[in-house]
């Protein structure tokens, strides 16, 4: 069976700089794959290309059996791809609940009939008239949003109505993940979900991601906290200067001399590439 995400020869240049060079990467259904590497290695650029925000200068991205090259981010999202952002992009003036509900936008059916031309007008009328099917759908989504937020224990549930800007940094990152889950993604891209979190919060996040993995969510993760990566990943890709320098199961990558060299060479890490934390900028 073809992998869920199949990337071949992915390339992106900015001016003279090659940010990502001929990257091959696959993620199978149900797999947990991590993408690591020093800052500026091209990880987030790779995410941006997969999710349609950045154009490709070469190569191909196939998702769920079809090429998604040239598709808009919204079309790719509709195919079941959800992502979080490196620095967090919650909707600041929206409530926690609305943020999560927006994650489910692609799943709206009753209120968004798939009609050509008059689709938008139908959506408008249905939203105003609100027949039972539409009401039911909205209720169901709200119940589900609460369920998702329950995953974070008591962190978010008491703050359903709070605007996102009023939340702590860690809570905003949690809202972002909740929003991504509401899309019921076939593939979830997590871009440094623990950046800027203290050890307790990190442990909590790690437990959450483990839960997601346990539920069979397919995940591609960018992360600097290598403990987390090594404990959760099925496979790990290592990027340096836009080039893949290693891939394989965590134990193999951990001891790869090229990886150690890359991290040490960049002087971003003290000892071996194992348990040391690199804080994202």
């Amino acid at each position: 069976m073809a992998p869920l995400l199949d990337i071949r020869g992915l390339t992106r240049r900015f001016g003279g700089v090659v940010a990502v060079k001929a990257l091959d990467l696959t993620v199978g259904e149900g797999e947990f794959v991590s993408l690591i590497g020093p800052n500026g290695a091209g990880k987030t650029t790779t995410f941006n290309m997969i999710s349609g925000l950045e154009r490709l200068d070469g190569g191909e991205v196939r998702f769920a059996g079809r090429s998604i090259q040239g598709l808009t981010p919204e079309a790719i999202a509709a195919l079941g791809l959800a992502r979080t952002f490196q620095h967090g992009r919650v909707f600041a003036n929206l409530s926690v609940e609305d943020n999560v509900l927006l994650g489910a936008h692609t799943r709206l059916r009753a209120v968004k009939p798939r009609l050509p031309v008059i689709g938008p007008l139908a959506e408008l009328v249905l939203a105003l008239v609100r027949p039972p099917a539409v009401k039911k759908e909205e209720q169901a989504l709200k119940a589900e949003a609460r369920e998702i937020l329950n995953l974070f224990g008591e962190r978010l549930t008491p703050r359903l109505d709070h605007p996102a800007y009023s939340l702590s940094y860690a809570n905003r990152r949690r809202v972002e993940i909740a929003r991504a889950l509401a899309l019921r993604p076939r593939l979830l891209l997590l871009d440094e979900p623990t950046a800027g979190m203290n050890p307790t919060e990190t442990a909590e996040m790690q437990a959450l991601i483990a839960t997601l993995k346990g539920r069979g969510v397919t995940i591609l993760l960018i992360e600097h906290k290598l403990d987390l990566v090594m404990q959760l990943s099925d496979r790990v890709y290592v990027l340096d200067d836009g080039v893949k320098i290693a891939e394989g199961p965590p134990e193999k990558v951990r001891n790869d001399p090229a990886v150690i060299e890359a991290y040490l060479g960049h002087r971003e890490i003290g000892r071996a590439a194992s348990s040391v934390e690199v804080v994202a900028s």
Partner: protein
Amino acid sequence: MSSFIDYTVNGLVVGNIYALLAVGLALIFGVANLINFAHGSVYTFGAYIGWAAVTFLHTPLPVTMLIVFVACAGLGVVIERVGLRPLQGKARIAPLLATIGLSFVLDQLVQLVFSPDPRAVPSDLPDWRLAVGDGSIGAMDILIAAVGLASAALLYVFLRFTKLGFAVRATAQDREAAQQMGVNVDAVNSAVFAIASALGGLSGLLVGMYYNHIDPAMSFQATLKGVVAQVIGGVGNVPGAIVGSLLLGLTESYGIALLGTTYRNLFAFVLLIAFLLWLPNGLFGGRATIQSEPLVGSFIAPSRPIRLPRWAVAALALAAFALPLATSAPYLLQTLTNAWLAAMLALSLTLIAGTAGQISFGHAGLLAIGGYASALLALDLGAPPILSIPAAGLITAGLGALLVFPAFRLRGHYIAIATLAIGEIVSLVILNWEGLTGGAMGLTGIPPLSFLGQDIFSNRAIYWLCLAIVVSLAALQARFLNSHFGRTLRAVREDEIAARSYGIKLDRYKGLAFAFGGFGAGVSGAIAAHLYSYLNNQTFDSQLSLLALTMVILGGMGNVLGAIVGAVALVGLPELFRVAAEYRILIYGVVLLLLIRFRPQGLLGTV
């Protein structure tokens, strides 16, 4: 052929004048990321200072120029210090509005001090002319070009080679970083406003001498042309502003050559739209300009809106409905009817600008479309108002969304400028399409409001009708916002990238917002048409668009009840200030400034 040379020379001469304005605007935009709507007022102020110097002190030109330069630099510092610095860290929209408020105040002060009469500003330049083609250029043309080029050159030297200039550039690149590196950002801002305002005032003086004519109402047009020129050149780019100005001057001149004088501004605004669509960063702007535009998400002030309980809203509505039973004072009812008509407009704008984040400076254009649609349906097809008004609403919804559609991919300031241009284009098309609209003569004899063949004249009936429409539109809008549309549009406003990444098609939702909002605005324009019985191209002017925006901000962006409160306040306040006669717009400007300063999220808060 010789005419072609003349048109070219004339285009460059006028472009030259625009350049003086655009350079200052570009400088301020570059550093403060702000369209300074008060720039035209500084220009007027400079012109009058110069006039006073020449008239009362009989100063020679160099001295006059020096006086204007110094006085306007001082004014710039005051504007920055008093009007804008306190707004740092507030929502992005706040300084923009503050400049609008400042322009009201400055224009009115100039008018009160110097009287509204136009004045002649004699210059003591020699009456010397150089023949070019069949026309000629004079000493004043050369002086204006010289001042334009010299100021650009001096600016270049200042920015490149002085310490303060370096700080200015650093601040323009990245304000936070500059601040962290120890740049005194306040001093930089102050310096930039001083320089830009000095140039603005100088251009007012020179243009006043050039035409031998200054008047206190010349500000708005000056700002408008300066903004257009600098968008063409690349927002915030000084050399770009000069080239953009020349290009604008040339386009207008060739436009006149092609179709005639009355099409001049149409060419200017169509050029602007073309640039926004195909070259949104202008001639000289880098690609990064739009990418780093940080307006989205921080444009409106974060706040916790005041939520009135349902019973209180219902009680207010009931009281409004009951009012005509308690009093029949026609003036009060008419003023409130005006407020309800304005509220329909404000509801429309608060949805589009507040909820969906598409700041529109051209909303009067939607009123005009609605007004003309209903009037023409009634006059040409004999449709009764009860049909023509909703039809006009639908036409406005469709046409409005269609007209703005090309601008959907713009953001922040750019959408504001684009809508401003689209509003002007609507008004110019109305002026020039005489066959349909009657042009400047307008449409007369528009039938009054009627129901089942019965004309409605009673103040009470009209009041109730308008109030009922406002309440229905507000209820409908609240229901709309309470559905998935509310959160979806707000998501579009907050962060387009994140919204798209979650499957939101921007065009679809912006389009629906404009359509929904367009309906209300169209209905308002249509009712006004039947009430006034006469419309022409000046009935819905661009000042009205600015007024609508202030209503929305006063009430709280996106806030449905706030829009109504804002409309009642801003229609009512000038009426209350009526006793102050000439001073009332001044008071209005000051109130607006205080409001922006102390409650930028509006009375009821942004939603």
